[in-house]
């Protein structure tokens, strides 16, 4: 019984301590000229889908939820954003070579089509980020059109 009490205290103490570990925020005021939106002529509907479902992890600007103030949640989010940006950074899309843009567009299309993106864990919390079947079709069609034009 005493052990449980101590363990509980330890956990609480650890929880308090980690709140003081700083995290860096993925936010930038600069609107990059290399941004996906400036690289292509993006229709309004597509832009909305990209901004709500992709940009949080795949750009230099994350719209953070309130619970990003709490550790260890903030660490998980930080890690997701880091990995997401390495894979695809829509803020720097224009700086990719044509070859890479093409290959990335293909991957974007197939990931959305297969429902692998946005991540289900992300869509579970961000209900508005979920891409409906209609939106999926719209998105994939548009992406294929861009690929063919490159």
């Amino acid at each position: 019984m005493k052990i449980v009490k101590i363990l509980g205290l330890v956990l609480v103490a650890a929880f308090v301590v980690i709140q003081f570990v700083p995290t860096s925020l993925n936010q930038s005021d600069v609107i990059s000229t290399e941004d996906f939106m400036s690289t292509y002529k993006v229709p309004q509907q597509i832009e909305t889908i990209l901004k709500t479902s992709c940009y949080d992890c795949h750009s230099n600007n994350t719209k953070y939820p309130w619970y990003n103030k709490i550790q260890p949640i903030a660490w998980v989010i930080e890690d997701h954003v880091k990995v997401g940006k390495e894979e695809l950074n829509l803020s720097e899309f224009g700086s990719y070579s044509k070859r890479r843009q093409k290959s990335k567009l293909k991957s974007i299309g197939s990931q959305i089509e297969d429902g692998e993106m946005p991540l289900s864990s992300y869509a579970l919390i961000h209900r508005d980020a979920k891409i409906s079947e209609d939106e999926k079709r719209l998105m994939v069609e548009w992406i294929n059109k861009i690929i063919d034009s490159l």
Partner: protein
Amino acid sequence: MRKMKAIIGFVLITLTLSVVSCKESKTNEAADNGTAVETSEVEKESHKHSDSEMKHDKNKTANSDQKSSKAEAIISNYLKMKDALVADDEKEAAKMGAELAVSLKSLSLNEFNEAQQKELREIIESATEHAEHIAKSHMDHQREHFKGLSVDITDMIAITGTSITLYEQFCPMYDKGSAWLSVSNEVRNPYYGSKMLKCGKVQKEIY
């Protein structure tokens, strides 16, 4: 007061321990990867005569100069990966993905003119990305990336040349039509493997 000290001490110890154990689990992971590679090495030994092995034999006798020999390592790894996908061997394909990512880095660009260097750099960047994905993905995903990789390798060879004859083959069914390279003019489909082994046709011969 003493109790308080004990608790703080306890917390510090737990935190240290958890940091240490995190590190340990990472090393374990690396060790696991090591064994995985070893196993597939053994598996590879037992593989039947694949055309990349045939290619390897040819290579020994070929009088390739230094310039193309680097590209040959890339082509060789690409062909082994192709064979793994033909054989529906996800593990071997992943291993070749990792090896290809390494050989792509060592391609020397000095002999090429500026425009070619730029093109090659872009090809290598893109091909490396595909190879790295193939190294960590399930087979469906590996095949998706193999398509892009095949485009990159074909474009690379257009610049670097090849000391062996290659056949560009084409499957009209996979993803609205997809190509790949082989040393044999016999069709063995890497996009479908055993499901549709002979689907496709020879499109071009590359010298």
